[in-house]
């Protein structure tokens, strides 16, 4: 893990009407690290990913990615510059096959076309365990497979930074460690990860740093176990009887 910030977020704010979902957010994501994000429901976590991914525009603040100011770039340009993401509520291209869904990521944002693109797509499907469904219509997938598809598409874009929004929800206790392992390998292969998850034990076991958001502000950021012990985090997010990693 190096200390060069891959992504620096500076003074990022976003307000919907009277609802403040991001208020003066400033933090860095370092090259090659895995940053976990937790926070109460409605804290602004998904909004933050939307801001970084370029799906929504900030009211103020700036974003630097890989040495480039991306504040004004659209979602497609950001994807091309190396930001991949998954959506909390999956958004498959229902009229395409699973393979074609992934190939869109590989060929557009990933810019690998033809054979190379096919291989990249194949690999993403294999990694996420979707290969056997490659020829299925994405619209027919079950929720869980849709989530996997989110991940597969993001991987196919060859991201430098991947933004993951609750991809573990709905996984069985046995599948979660596999996912954690996948993320670890991803990080090991040099991809920077920002991961939102409410299944805290999964998150904590995979990330280098943890950030807790509440009401659009950073409540705590730092070493995962430190953050988890913070009384504010416990109060607004974890509750008293935090279910810890307790595998069957």
């Amino acid at each position, binding site marked *: 893990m190096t200390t060069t910030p891959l992504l620096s977020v500076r003074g990022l704010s976003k307000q919907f009407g009277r609802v403040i979902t991001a208020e003066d957010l400033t933090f860095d994501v370092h090259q090659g690290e895995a940053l976990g994000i937790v926070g*109460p429901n*409605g804290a602004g976590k998904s909004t933050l990913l939307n801001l970084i991914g370029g799906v929504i525009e900030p009211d103020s603040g700036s974003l630097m990615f890989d040495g480039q100011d991306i504040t004004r770039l659209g979602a497609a340009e950001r994807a091309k510059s190396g930001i991949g993401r998954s959506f909390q509520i999956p958004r498959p291209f229902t009229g395409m096959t699973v393979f074609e869904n992934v190939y869109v990521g590989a060929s557009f944002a990933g810019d690998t076309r033809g054979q190379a693109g096919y291989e990249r797509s194949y690999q993403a499907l294999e990694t996420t365990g979707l290969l056997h469904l490659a020829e299925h219509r994405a619209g027919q997938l079950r929720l869980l497979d849709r989530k996997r598809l989110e991940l597969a598409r993001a991987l196919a874009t060859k991201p430098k930074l991947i933004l993951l929004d*609750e991809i573990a929800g709905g996984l069985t206790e046995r599948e979660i460690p596999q996912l954690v392992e996948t993320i670890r390998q991803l990080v090991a292969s040099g991809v920077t990860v920002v991961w939102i998850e*409410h299944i805290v034990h999964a998150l904590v076991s995979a990330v280098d740093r943890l950030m807790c958001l509440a009401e659009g502000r950073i409540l705590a950021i730092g070493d995962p176990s430190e953050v988890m012990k913070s009384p504010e985090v416990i109060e*607004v997010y*974890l*509750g008293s009887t935090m*279910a810890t990693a*307790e595998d069957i």
Partner: protein
Amino acid sequence: MALLEVDAIDVHYGDFQAIYGLSITVDEGETLAVIGANGAGKSTLLKTIAGINRPRVGEVRFDGANISGLAAHRRVPLGISLTPEGRRIFPSLTLEENLLVGGHTKRPGYWNLTTVYETFPLLADRRSRLGVHASGGEQQATAIGRALMSNPRLLLLDEVSLGLAPIVVENIYAALPNISAQGTTVLVVEQDVNQALKVANRVHCLLEGRSVLEGKPAELSREQIASAYFGI
């Protein structure tokens, strides 16, 4: 007497059979947890009880009456209410309106806007927000509140803790006894087996559309559950 009797049902999606000769009974006031791996047929079971899917074979009886042929919207007045997988919040309605729609059948009982807001203070603050804008967790809480608003005798909860902050999950499960205390029978589907075991009087484990294990949490060993769960 059993409030709900699911009697040897087969459920299909087109040619694909999702449930094979499944039988389950739930007694009035009881909390039954249904667990099982992905695709085991848990959601299908709940949807069949709620009337969205119809069994091709077998019967669903509620309070002694065969309701297998009854449309979903006619089961709500009887006291069956489902919190569907994936929340299914009405996006163009405010959260409060979502709750009010939940009370559409006007079944009398403990639950109303006030009691729901007490249980989910999160919602009280955001009642005028549109469903489409609500965060995942806000939506989940609304979905449960909405189901409660019909004052069901039988509450069907499908993976309600999905996407919720730990503290909210804790609150919901803390609220479950409270819900049960109103005389509501609860059938909960949960991925998190520990959670399920904690709240349930009885557990049913499904594997590929069949019931493979049934019993009281205290009587079941971890190994039993694990093998039933994964079919090892």
